């Protein structure tokens, strides 16, 4: 949950689904951004939406996707990373 009592998982999935042009029910935790057809622009837009939705700042540089503190390996890792940032920045 975030500070507003909103479930992080559902919200992150909804944001990712919107970028991937899918129904939230069709997004699974194991999928990678590639699986979902998210290019770098879609990813940057999804991160922006996450920042706005949870009122957090996400450390992410599109030039160093594998070295960011924010792990975008899979939907599950993104949810975990968002939850961690919410806990840290917006408890």
């Amino acid at each position, binding site marked *: 949950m975030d500070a507003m009592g909103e479930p992080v998982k559902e919200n992150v999935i909804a944001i990712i689904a919107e970028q991937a042009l899918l129904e939230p029910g069709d997004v699974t935790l194991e999928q990678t951004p590639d699986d979902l057809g998210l*290019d*770098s*622009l879609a990813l*940057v837009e999804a*991160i*922006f939406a996450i920042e706005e939705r949870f009122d957090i*700042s996400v450390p*992410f*540089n*599109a*030039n*160093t*996707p594998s070295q960011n503190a924010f792990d975008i390996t899979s939907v599950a890792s993104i949810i975990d990373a968002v939850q961690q940032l919410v806990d840290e920045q917006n408890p």
Partner: protein
Amino acid sequence: MKRVVITGAGTINALGHGVAETLDAMANGVCGIGALDIRDVDRLSVRIGAQVTNFSPQDHFNRQQISLYDRFTQFTLLAAKQAVAQSGLEFSGDLARSSGVVLGTAGGGVITGDDNYRSVYEQGKNRVHPFVVPKLMNNAAASHVSMEYNLQGPSFTVATACASSNHAMGQAFNLVRSGMATTMLTGGSEAMLCFGGIKAWEGLRVMSKDACRPFSADRDGMVQGEGAAVFVFEDYEHARARGAEILCEVVGFAMTSDAADIVMPSKQGAARAIQGAMRDGAINPADVGYINAHGTGTLANDKIECAAVADVFGGHTDALMMSSTKSMHGHLIGGTGAVELLACIMALRDGIIAPTIGHRQADPDCALDIVANQARETPVGTVLSNAFAFGGLNAVLGLRKF
């Protein structure tokens, strides 16, 4: 078809307030990137840039001029003054009517826009200065240059993001080559190092917070710069007849469109532009000694640019040098190709190849001779200058030693 030569050059950028100072800095691998000194910098996550320092408009312009000249116009006028002085040209009569100015800028008067948005939105004012529009319009710099030097021929401004200056100089080249103009002032300018100008770029998450390290495996993005460079492109016969000093010859130009993606570059689009400029200038791969790269220091550009060059040059790739001077003067966006043309002129005239500074680690995806960290003294006869813009618009110039 006329031959086209460059008979004057001028600049102001983070490396210097003139050509000599800039070339000296490039030859010595000086970094013009530092902490940004701008309003509200504490609200930015990107706090570095290649700013023009020790510059006070009052030293160059009167109060009335300053009320009309955005910073990008001020930079342009200072660069144009140096270029025209070097060329020795005076524009009157037929020469004035057959001479013009075509400049590149991506944002035009961004600082003017930023200041005035601040005043109406943040400060709640209901009145702005009467000259906001003539100050911020993209063609303001070109128009003021035309007025300053009585240039009555073809004059306009090109806005193709990071390729603006190269597109502008390509137009100038073709105007002189075709005989439509005798001389053209050309180049470009950018001044968007203000809160709004940087905040917008932050959003894309392609900016480095540390340094611009083109082609280095640990590169993490671009760094913005500001400034201008202006050149005099002149019909060779006209230049010869008046005994002008010739800096180099412009021999080829091509532009292509990726028609693919609004931000991701395309190897094919870049390669076609490079190939096109070589075909246009009858340049053989073996002739090209140096390429001034677009080399933004982003993951995508540098990898794709190297692949495009390798595709075009094949077995000649290893014999050519390529560097990105953005590591020193930053990315001047719409003005960048103009400042980078100075490095090309230095290569041709002085045989000094400006380095890619800040390079720490070889990247197998950028396995070209990128002249890492130290300038090199090697005579070259023909050079290319690449520019690949957001929006997939590419423009490449070819120059030859004269």
